């Protein structure tokens, strides 16, 4: 029986954790089997949760979020017969699969769309916790924006420096309002459930928002330009399907692997023009073919554009 451990933002953050949840649900629906899940309430609980599931014989055990990294490093050796899957971090243990995504590529695509949809030439980015991973989103996004409109301004804000930054919608909406005040008319939120506040403020103020991880277009139809899809659900689904003998090692999911994409559906089809689709799909093909390389912030902790 597999198990799934969610991080602090909670299973229903409509974003990162919810994507994982959807993957698990899909697996459960298709196989008719059951799995266990638990949401973290505090930093200190991570270890107990992993151990409890391992003790109870759950296998594989998937967890969402880089914050499990150091705990897993510790726990995994104690349960050599259990397979662990960690998303967004690399843990070098023989029984661990580490899944990381090429978020910069997807962010690049939605950045392009943002620049094309913007009237003011100013777009915004609200990140969650200020960590390299989120800077990777921001940097990819900025590159995409500049690729379309070199004069565009990208306003960037991070919500905080602790995991609480993933779950602070009030702060998200205040930051969004501040960016709108500075002229932003498209805002990309990469901040877990904090992003819900960002998107809410964008909708309230009548500008466009861009969702992240899950397809968030349905949240505010008419006010959601698109969502940058990070297929955590696929990662979880795959892991559960492979079951107790999944292959450990590092898995990188990008545009090529369909691990990353942008969302196009009934909720945003009126906002996305033919021209946008053409441009973005062209860029996507180029990235997949290697003709276009989007700089990965985490490769050298710098970003070529601002």
């Amino acid at each position, binding site marked *: 029986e597999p198990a799934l451990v969610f991080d602090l933002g909670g299973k229903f953050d409509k974003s990162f954790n919810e994507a994982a949840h959807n993957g698990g649900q899909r697996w459960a629906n298709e196989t008719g089997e059951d799995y*266990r899940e*638990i949401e973290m*309430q*505090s*930093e*200190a*609980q991570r*270890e*107990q949760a992993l*151990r*409890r599931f*391992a*003790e109870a014989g759950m296998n594989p055990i998937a967890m969402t979020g*880089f*914050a499990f*990294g*150091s705990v897993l490093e*510790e726990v995994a050796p*104690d349960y050599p017969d259990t397979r662990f899957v960690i998303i967004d971090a690399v843990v070098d243990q023989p029984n661990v699969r580490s899944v990381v995504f090429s978020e910069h590529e997807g962010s690049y695509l939605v950045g392009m769309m943002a620049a094309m949809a913007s009237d003011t030439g100013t777009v915004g980015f609200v990140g969650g*916790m200020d*960590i*390299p*991973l989120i800077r990777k989103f921001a940097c990819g996004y900025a590159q995409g924006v500049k690729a379309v409109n070199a004069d565009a301004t990208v306003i960037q804000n991070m919500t905080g*420096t*602790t*995991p609480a930054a993933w779950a602070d919608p009030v702060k998200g909406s205040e930051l969004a309002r501040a960016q709108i005040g500075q002229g932003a008319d498209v805002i990309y939120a990469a901040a877990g459930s904090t992003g819900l506040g960002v998107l809410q403020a964008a909708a309230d103020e009548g500008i466009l928002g861009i969702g992240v991880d899950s397809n968030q277009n349905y949240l505010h139809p008419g006010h959601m330009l698109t969502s940058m899809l990070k297929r955590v659900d696929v990662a979880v689904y795959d892991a559960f399907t492979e079951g107790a003998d999944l292959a450990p090692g590092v898995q990188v999911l990008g545009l090529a692997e369909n691990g990353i994409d942008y969302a196009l559906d009934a909720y945003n089809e009126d906002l996305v023009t033919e021209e946008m689709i053409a441009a973005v799909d062209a860029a996507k093909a180029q990235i997949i073919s290697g003709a276009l390389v989007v700089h990965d912030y985490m490769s050298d902790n710098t970003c070529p554009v601002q």
Partner: protein
Amino acid sequence: MERMPKWADVLLIPLISLILAFALSALVIVAIGEDPVNAVRLMVTGALGSTYGWGYTLYYATNFIFTGLAVAVAFHARLFNIGGEGQATLGGLGVALICLALPWPHWGLALPAAVIASALFGAAWAAIPAWLQATRGSHIVITTIMFNFIAGALLNYMLVNVMRPMGSMDPATAKFPEGTNLPTLHEVLAPIGINFSKAAPANVTLLIALAACVLVWLLIWRTRLGYEIRALGQSAPAAVYAGIRPVRIVMLAMLVSGALAGMMAVNNVMGEAERLVLNAVEGAGFIGIAVALMGRNHPFGVLLAALLFGFLYQGGAELALWTSIPREMIVVIQALVILFTGALDNMVRAPLERAFMAIGRGRG
């Protein structure tokens, strides 16, 4: 003439309050469509059905013994210390600093150092509210609440800006060195032939907590300082009459209280996580209030109440795992225990007192 026999005061009343609290909790469980009997069964097997369960129960109980004693000691001086949370947070900071400062060769050396550091940091965090209460009359309840928040911000700052190792995304300190890892109950009990779960975090700190119970008992009922603390708590004018200096006693009682709360960090930071993370205290400071109220501020009572809450915590975690009863159910139980044993004490007490008076009259 006594209104009520002592056993009724120390046993019967807390018991009735506890039953009321549990009965209401059961109602809540029924109301959300779960089976309370099954819930209890799950909690008992989860918390007491294996050495793994026991290991977590005892681990939580260790935390609660420290915070419960902290509240109890202060309460003997009629100081309501709601600052256990902040003091334990600072205790954690002390433990982390000392563990990371030196290449400790053996836990036997690191442990006393950590105990001292945590106690000092905890006491220091209690010292300012204590001093303000003693000399300026600032209400200690309010100041300790404020200090909990300030401690949170301070820890946040330290972990994010100062103690986070280079290159780490986690706002947490580095792993403590090998030489500071405390033996768990598994290692402690192995020599005497007991095979205790390796995975559970209960560790030697439990023994320190038990020793703290005995020491607090001696302090309160066998020493001059304890005598003075109790005297001041019962009557400040009388204390002044007797030449007991209120400022000194308020300070000392709070320092001891803060030190006890701080020492909790030896268990959770050094014994369990082996690094310092955000919100490591996880509300144990507040549970200390419930524990002290239940335990009637007596170390033995605190020990029993801490075990009870350890059981509730571990059992509650299990509940959350295997049923759809969220972990917050424990918070509800905790609230009800505080409500009935603390705030609604008279609701239980008054009818009992009347009953005992009537019995007394009947006999006389």
